């Protein structure tokens, strides 16, 4: 007796398979528009058939075959055939849909296309979430706080450029890989960060975005297991994700030293620590590996007091050499405060050109509070609150400010 799924269940399976499905259709038909239309038609067939027959044993293969057949039917019907599509139709390619092997490479190829440097950064993020994450345009628009029509235009424009300018569906050659990989990792990290601490005044944590970024990073890691920065990024995301449940309490952000460490996800922590060890062993350090290593030191400490701050400062020193940005300097100063005291840290922080950045004000506020400079601390909390829209962060800063006497 087959399990008879409802509409929601069919849609869930479809969404899980979407990235693979689109990627394999794009490989075959060399056209995103054709792939999306065919996938949409396959969903309609699934919605009609699966509630009767049950979900097929390999739903991905079923969807790929169905969508492929629909695309061919459509091409047959159309009198004005695009030369490209005709070529795809002629070379009938029925590569089976498998969870490993060349089909996985389809997703990797499409990921590099979505994150192509010829596309605007915001278009890269949107396209990656749409085509590989299977998120709807409405969901992406909501996540990035833009009207749905704006997001639809952004995605349509990017797809049009890919088709018109002939952006290849290809993993770059070895010589270009490190540079292009950097762009892909940046997109995944931005998606993750938006989930981790949303910029807007909606939900403070957008789990669906961080989950999607981790899922894509896992795929990338599976496909490029020997690229240490890929391993580093996955480790970083996993270690941050492990602390998610302890990070927000009653709608308020909980700072790292105040978090209930028993609430951390041990499985994810162990996975993250193992990944950090693997990538550091290759001895080709990079930004994400160092950030992951810093998070590993935090996750390794049984209590906040046990944190090895000298190691964290040493890791930030190495990171500064790779990325001498003021944001890295700000985070380093937070660690310096634990090692050399708030006064030393404050002198470092005050030098940074970050007056528009909420975390700069929040860090100053905390250091001034610890130095007993109450009036200045209050002013800094007020600036920090004014500079962020995230409700959980505002709640945390407001409480801290209110506790000052």
């Amino acid at each position, binding site marked *: 007796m087959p399990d008879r799924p409802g509409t929601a269940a069919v849609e869930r399976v479809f969404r899980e398979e979407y990235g693979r499905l689109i990627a394999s259709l794009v490989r075959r038909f060399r056209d995103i528009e054709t792939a999306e239309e065919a996938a949409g038609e396959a969903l309609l067939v699934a919605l009609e058939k699966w509630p009767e027959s049950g979900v097929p044993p390999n739903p991905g293969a079923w969807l790929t075959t169905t969508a492929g057949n629909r695309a061919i039917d459509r091409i047959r019907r159309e009198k004005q055939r695009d030369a490209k599509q005709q070529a795809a139709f002629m070379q009938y390619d029925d590569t089976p849909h498998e969870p490993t092997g060349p089909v996985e490479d389809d997703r990797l190829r499409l990921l590099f296309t979505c994150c*192509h440097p*010829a596309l605007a950064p915001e278009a890269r993020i949107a396209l990656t979430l749409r085509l590989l994450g299977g998120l709807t345009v409405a969901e992406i628009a909501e996540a990035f706080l833009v009207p749905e029509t704006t997001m639809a235009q952004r995605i349509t424009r990017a797809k049009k450029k890919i088709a*018109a*300018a*002939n*952006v*290849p569906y*290809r993993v*770059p050659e070895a010589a*270009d890989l490190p540079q292009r990989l950097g762009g892909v990792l940046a997109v995944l990290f931005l998606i993750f960060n938006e989930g981790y601490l949303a910029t807007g005044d909606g939900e403070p944590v957008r789990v669906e975005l961080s989950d999607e970024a981790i899922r894509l990073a896992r795929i990338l890691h599976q496909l490029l297991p020997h690229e240490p920065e890929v391993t580093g990024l996955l480790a970083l995301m996993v270690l941050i994700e492990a602390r998610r449940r302890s990070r927000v309490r009653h709608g308020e952000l909980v700072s790292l030293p105040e978090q209930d460490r028993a609430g951390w996800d041990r499985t994810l922590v162990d996975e993250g620590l193992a990944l950090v060890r693997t990538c550091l062993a290759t001895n080709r350090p990079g930004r994400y590996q160092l950030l992951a290593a810093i998070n590993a030191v935090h996750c390794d400490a049984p209590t906040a007091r046990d944190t090895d701050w000298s190691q964290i400062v040493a890791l930030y020193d190495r990171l500064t050499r790779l990325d001498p940005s003021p944001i890295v300097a700000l985070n380093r100063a937070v660690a310096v405060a634990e090692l050399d005291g708030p006064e030393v840290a404050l002198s470092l922080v005050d030098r940074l050109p970050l007056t528009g950045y909420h975390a700069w004000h929040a860090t100053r506020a905390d250091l001034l509070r610890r130095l007993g400079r109450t009036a200045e601390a209050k002013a800094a909390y007020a600036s920090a609150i004014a500079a962020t829209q995230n409700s959980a962060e505002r709640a945390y800063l407001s409480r801290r400010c209110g506790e000052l006497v």
Partner: protein
Amino acid sequence: MTHYLMSVHGPAERDEFGNYGSREQMEEAFAATGAFNDKLRADGYWVFAGGLQEASTATVVDGQGETPVMTDGPYLETKEVIGGFWVIEAPDLDVALGLAAQASKACRGKVEVRPFDGLA
């Protein structure tokens, strides 16, 4: 294969050394561009290329009415104008962007890469 226009944008007004700075630098740029052109031909990407006279030498013609109307000067009065261009044929955008980077280095200017919708 896709055809691309690679256009070089530069200041509308040129000085005696074509805004390259000095005679030597101008000659170096010409030589580098010549070498790049030879490579484009040898590698089979070449379709057509040329440098343009100053924008002030342009005339705009509107022939949509009964008698054509001529206007002296370029269509758009801007500080930066197209100074020259290449038309290339390349397998995909990555190849075209790689060639544009070489072109930019050779001619000492920024290069815009734009695909053709069709080529007659």
